[in-house]
């Protein structure tokens, strides 16, 4: 299988490391070449790493509730820095407090993320397959935008 590079990390001042370690293992086992930046990653660090590794997707986690603030303008920043076709995924506990998950996901889709996985007990089932499909679509210029 051809190598697909992706960048993984936890955004902002967020220190939640457990899910990140499991995600690294999952996407690696599924055949992706994963650059894991760990916790407390800024937007620019994500983008730097994506440029450096030629990543086709950035997988962002946010657990601690500050995603609304931390993720603001991420898509624009990618575009600014020339990452036109990168697939952006976001997952975790995305807002402060228990909220309707669909509304939450829509909020981040509107921000420019391609897929959003909210709620904590996100079983890792078909995410790798979705990612592969989305990256293929993106290569063909059809970037997936759910919602």
């Amino acid at each position, binding site marked *: 299988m051809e190598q697909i590079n992706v960048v993984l990390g936890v955004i902002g*001042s967020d220190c939640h490391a457990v899910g990140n370690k499991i995600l690294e293992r999952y996407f690696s086992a599924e055949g992706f070449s994963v650059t894991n930046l760990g916790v407390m990653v800024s937007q620019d660090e994500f983008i730097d790493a994506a440029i450096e590794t030629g990543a086709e997707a950035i997988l962002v986690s946010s657990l601690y509730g500050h995603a*609304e603030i931390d993720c603001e303008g991420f898509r624009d920043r990618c575009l600014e820095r020339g990452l036109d076709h990168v697939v952006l995924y976001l997952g975790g506990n995305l807002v402060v407090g*228990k*909220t309707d998950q669909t509304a939450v996901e829509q909020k981040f889709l509107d921000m420019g993320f391609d897929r959003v996985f909210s709620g*904590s*007990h996100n079983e890792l089932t078909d995410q790798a397959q979705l990612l592969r499909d989305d990256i293929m679509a993106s290569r063909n210029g059809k970037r997936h935008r759910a919602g």
Partner: protein
Amino acid sequence: MNTGLDTQKFTEERKTVLQSWPTGSEVDLEEAFAFHQSLPKKKVCSIRLQEALDQQVVLLQPRAGVALVDEHIRLLSFLQEESDLLPTTIDAYTRQNKYADAQKGIERSEQAQRSLLNGFPAVNHGVHGCRSIIEALDKPVEIRHGTPDARLLTEIALAGGFTSYEGGGISYNIPYAKNVPLEKSIRDWQYVDHLVGIYEAHGCSINREPFGPLSGTLVPPCVSHTVAIIEGLLALEQGVKSLTLGYGQAGNLVQDIAAMRVLKKLADGYFRQMGYTDYQLSTVFHQWMGGFPESEAQAFAVISWGGVVASLSGATKVIVKTPHEALGIPTKEANRDGLLATRQSIQMVADLSPLDTLRISEEEELITSEVTCLMRSVIELGAGDLAAGAVRAFEAGVIDVPFAPAVCNAGKVLPVRDNDGAVRLFDTGSMPLSSDILAYHRDKIAHRAKQEKREASFQMVIDDIYAISKGRLVGRPT
């Protein structure tokens, strides 16, 4: 570096600290001492802890913190009735000293009319903001956070009238930070403890609580106990007098009771060995700190079990989770519900005489031997300087916290549950445990692997991480 800080150096350092954000200028020590001395007994944490120690009851404490002062007071007032001790949980920006980000969070919260911060930004609200909290409430309030460099936060919080303060140079670095050198965080927490010591010297009692659960995820008791004892010693050395050592529920009844029973015994032993006699020591049990089930009904079961074990293990206080744990910061009602369920659980088993099982005694012995191995090595590495010993111990992987984000943590140790659900060491990394202890862990894990007809592996570890959130303690294959 392991000595009471030099007064002159400390005074110089203070200036810089207090200048690092405008609210620092609000701190006036003499005025703060007077404020503390004027506090009624019911608001002083160590007094309440002593009552609990004497009466052998478990005190309940929730977690809670929101962006704005008034809203935070409303929240704590609501929780006060069902709590014995109150918290003020600090937001994640403040924990990283990002006071400008916190300011943005405050402003956006004011606009949005809901808290966009995951805690209370005490530095930004300053001494006056803190005072209004202490004045509005009738019970002791503690700062709970996760701040590697908490010097300014401590200055403001203590001057603000808080009588209890969580954290430590190891426990607020390893699980909470990524690139902070351990020397630095330990040094910055010596500052914190030194400041507490100054308050103590002026007759103002400030309880200090190292953060027991660390990464909250399958942490073997010997690891967290070793950290707790080191942080306790480092605090005593700076003049701290009231200490609460913590432990996060691992899930197996026998192991949890044993761990709590030896925590106090071991700590007292080391403290006395190092010449400390004039201190108050209590313990805190954290209800399950790992991933929770999403269903509130299931979360209630996890919370209730935590309450039961807190009581059976003789904790002085218990930190209470809420039925919203898996989902997000709880509403005040969900927070209160966690307290109600916990108190009911505690009081239903409070009358039971201590369990007298052989297996608990055996587990106590095991943990004692393990901690003895680790502490011996730390003390040796330090060669008379415990702080240096701790730094070297982490470098060498002598202490190694599973699933921690900090780069100064070796991260080689892998825990996994045995067939009874007790947390054992699958990969012991470089921890200097004796060969019989290593064999014991190996055998226990082999026994489970055999029962499950599979090899012990990282997959088994992952299964254990998910297990409670999926409804059981041990992650068995399905």
